[in-house]
């Protein structure tokens, strides 16, 4: 009986430790992804403001007669 409860307790503790370790790993992995996401997002933001990216829209200015002026 004592041996059985010891084994159950041991496995419970092991399960808790493994679960916690897994959660920590998942958290660290997500954090890395978030940092990478931030860099990628900032890069996309800056790239979208480059003169090349703006060429199509800012230079897309229509002729004055289209506004009926």
């Amino acid at each position, binding site marked *: 009986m004592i041996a059985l409860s010891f084994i159950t307790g041991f496995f419970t503790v092991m399960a808790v430790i493994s679960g916690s370790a897994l959660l920590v790993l998942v958290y660290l992995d997500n954090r890395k992804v978030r940092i990478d996401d931030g860099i990628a*997002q900032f890069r996309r933001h800056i790239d979208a403001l480059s*003169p090349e990216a703006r060429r199509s829209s800012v230079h897309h200015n229509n002729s004055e007669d289209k506004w009926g002026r």
Partner: protein
Amino acid sequence: MARDLAIDLGTANTLVYMKGKGIVLNEPSVIAVNRQSGEVLATGHDAWDMIGRTPSYIVAVRPLRGGAITDFDITERMIRLLLQRVGVSRFTRPKVVICVPSAITEVERRAVTDATRRAGASDAQLIEQPMAAAIGANLPIDEPVGNMVIDIGGGTTETAVISLGGVVALEAIRVGSFDIDAAIQSYVRREHGVAIGERTAEEIKIQIGSAEPGPEDRSADIRGRDLVTGLPKTVRLTAEEVRFAIDEPVAAMVMSVKRCLAKAPPELAQDFLSRGMYLVGGGGMLRGLAKRIERETEVPVKMSPQPLEAVVLGAGHCIENYQALRGMFMGARR
């Protein structure tokens, strides 16, 4: 499926940019309404022609003052009509990016987004005018250098220092070119005893108004109503008189530019001396204004090649690159 839109909802003019098409509408932010029935009678150029010339049952108004909504219902109806005119129907609800002054309050922001959503937009995002102006003026804001933009609109003057796609320093005041018109009206009333309308004041500003003396200084005859006799009267106004009349709002604009320069980090301040500041907006077209700012700040001032369209072109670029530039919208940074 409606194409997404960018709207520069200015105190003076409203411009609409349609995704993939460019600027599709540019007209005064004026609406004429029948006071009795509440029916809209005209908008844009047609309504502008009516200002100060309507019978008592018609009112032609500018629903925005100082870049903010003063009449929510009328603004909503104006936006609804604008959307209809560019092809938005009840079943096609576009995403809309609207340019607003950075100086407006949280309540005023809510009013703009609510009015736009109720007018038929599926999503309404706000972008600060100086940021949109810097994008539209094609300044190299993607680089780690100081870009300074001065946007003088009908109701506001906004100066911003922008670097690496974000605002570093900002100064905004609710003084714009309509305050210059009001100063002219008030001067003519006080010094000549003649009442003139806001359209006449605007014409005087365009014809002979200036912020600095110049070779093209001349005088103009203006017509108004004599305050004593009540009869029509013509008076001659010189460029020097107009310069004196408008000095207060012009000085306020220059001071706000100086305050923004003072807020800029030293590393970026040195960039202004070599790169200069860029002037956009209709108010920036006042004769001699660039020269006066340059004289008082000792920093070169350059006029944007498209001063009236820069803001909407910048917002248009944001609608073309909606996902990548989401971070620029006012709500996204909170």
